[in-house]
């Protein structure tokens, strides 16, 4: 089987408008959670979130193009441009047929849906803009990325709630490894910080009203964010032949389903996903130098994830640093694991492990080294990134330092 490497990365998320600024914010332990600014925010009970600030779409897209682009597609396109630029890839006619895109999103064009339901239901309008459907469809981002770069191979969207991007990247990994493509753009994006998007999440009563404190004894729930990241996954020999800079190697992917509850996390499913990813990578659990946790900051997830890590890692669970960067960028739902993979990339490439911000006190029920509040220098050869979705669908990726 072929080896798969990452040769480009791009992002637009609450911590930064590119990889460099995101790394810098993670290294400083910055928290991008703040007051929400969406329409009708006064009617929300949850008034905080991690918004992307200072993004001016008209600086990135022509006016007539923008009418086709929901915010989640804009985020994916901006990220994909950065990733492609870094990769140095030139998509010629032959490569176009061997290149594709798989992106994750949970809500797709949620803001478009919200705006237009408002128009017809609340405002009583009988007409909506003609591009509502091409904006809101979950595959809009993947399609626009394929169009912008002329990627004519496999293209589709994966939607598995909070694990969407990890499932997408896992599929892209399989695609390149198995020979179905030489180059895949992959990752995910989400933009549902609109009235309806937040109102729906409020209903579950799992949202924090102050901030996101994963693994802290006084944690109070999850905080939504918006954003995403896109990577270039490439066949190792293809990348080497063209002298590309290799950012990291993707070595393992594991999936599992809890087949249990639609919202309550389970220990067994995550255990099986982590074990499957490590087995795929042919790595013993004690070879993992950093875990980017799912770490939502809810009572249930963090306790269950810690138990699962203990079962998988054994004694190594007390030694391995485990952090949740959701404490800084919020839970970007279907795009979150793509931005979290950047945390792994930073650990592998720069030897800096991103912290768990907003951490107040250890929880005896968790007891992990959660890298509280301050980034840490460490030599990291292997990093694992967890994503455990609502609906009990789990996806775990393992990266190794560039060969």
């Amino acid at each position, binding site marked *: 089987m072929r080896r798969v490497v990452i040769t480009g990365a791009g992002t637009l998320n609450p911590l930064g408008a590119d990889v460099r600024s995101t790394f810098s914010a993670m290294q400083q332990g910055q928290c991008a959670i703040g007051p929400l600014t969406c329409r009708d925010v006064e009617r929300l009970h949850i008034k905080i979130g991690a918004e992307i600030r200072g993004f001016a779409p008209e600086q990135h897209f*022509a*006016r*007539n193009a923008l*009418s*086709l682009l929901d915010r989640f597609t804009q985020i994916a396109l901006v990220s994909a441009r950065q990733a492609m630029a870094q990769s140095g890839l030139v998509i010629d006619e032959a490569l176009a047929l061997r290149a594709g895109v798989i992106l994750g999103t949970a809500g797709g064009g949620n803001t478009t849906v919200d705006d237009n339901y408002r128009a017809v239901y609340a405002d009583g309008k009988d*007409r909506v*803009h*003609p*591009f509502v459907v091409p904006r809101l469809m979950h595959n809009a981002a993947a399609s626009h990325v394929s169009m912008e770069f002329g990627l004519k191979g496999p293209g589709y969207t994966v939607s598995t709630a909070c694990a969407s991007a990890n499932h997408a990247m896992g599929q892209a990994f399989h695609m390149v490894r198995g020979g179905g493509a030489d180059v895949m753009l992959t990752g995910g994006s989400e933009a549902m910080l609109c009235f309806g998007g937040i109102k729906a999440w409020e209903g579950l009563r799992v949202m924090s009203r102050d901030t996101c404190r994963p693994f802290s004894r006084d944690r109070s729930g999850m905080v939504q964010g918006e954003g995403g990241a896109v990577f270039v996954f490439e066949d190792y020999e293809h990348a080497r032949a063209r002298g590309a800079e290799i950012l990291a190697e993707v070595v393992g992917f594991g999936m599992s389903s809890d087949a249990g509850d639609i919202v309550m996390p389970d220990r067994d499913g995550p255990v099986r996903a982590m074990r499957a990813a490590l087995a795929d990578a042919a790595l013993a659990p004690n070879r993992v130098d950093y875990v980017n946790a799912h770490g939502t900051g809810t009572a249930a997830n963090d306790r269950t994830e810690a138990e699962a890590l203990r079962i998988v890692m054994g004694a190594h669970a007390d030694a391995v640093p485990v952090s949740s960067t959701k404490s800084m960028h919020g839970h970007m739902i279907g795009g979150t694991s793509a931005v979290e993979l950047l945390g792994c990339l930073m650990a592998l490439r720069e030897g800096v492990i991103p912290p768990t911000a907003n951490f107040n006190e250890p929880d005896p029920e968790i007891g992990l080294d959660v890298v509280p509040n301050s980034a840490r220098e460490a030599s990291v050869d292997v990093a694992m990134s967890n994503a455990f979705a609502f609906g009990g669908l789990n996806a775990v990726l393992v990266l190794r330092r560039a060969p």
Partner: protein
Amino acid sequence: MGLDVMQETDFIAARVTEIIAEQAMMEPSDITDDSRLADLGIDSLGLVECIFGIEEAFGISVPFNANTPEQPGFDISSVGAIIAEVEKLVARQAA
């Protein structure tokens, strides 16, 4: 009365031209009644957006189906033809 009709007609022509110009990303002054949408770089999606803009601007419903663009219900062969069609629809609605 005659003057009012004249002013309304001018208004419709100017507004329709504006909507088409915005879609073509051109100045309204660069567009004439003889201009054809395809020559202005407006594709089928752009045409649908123009129709939407016209419906919104005049509060009318345009009988346009993208599956049968050649249908006689709404002549889109030139900017002038579209203006004439909109004038008819606005007049019918006022009647």
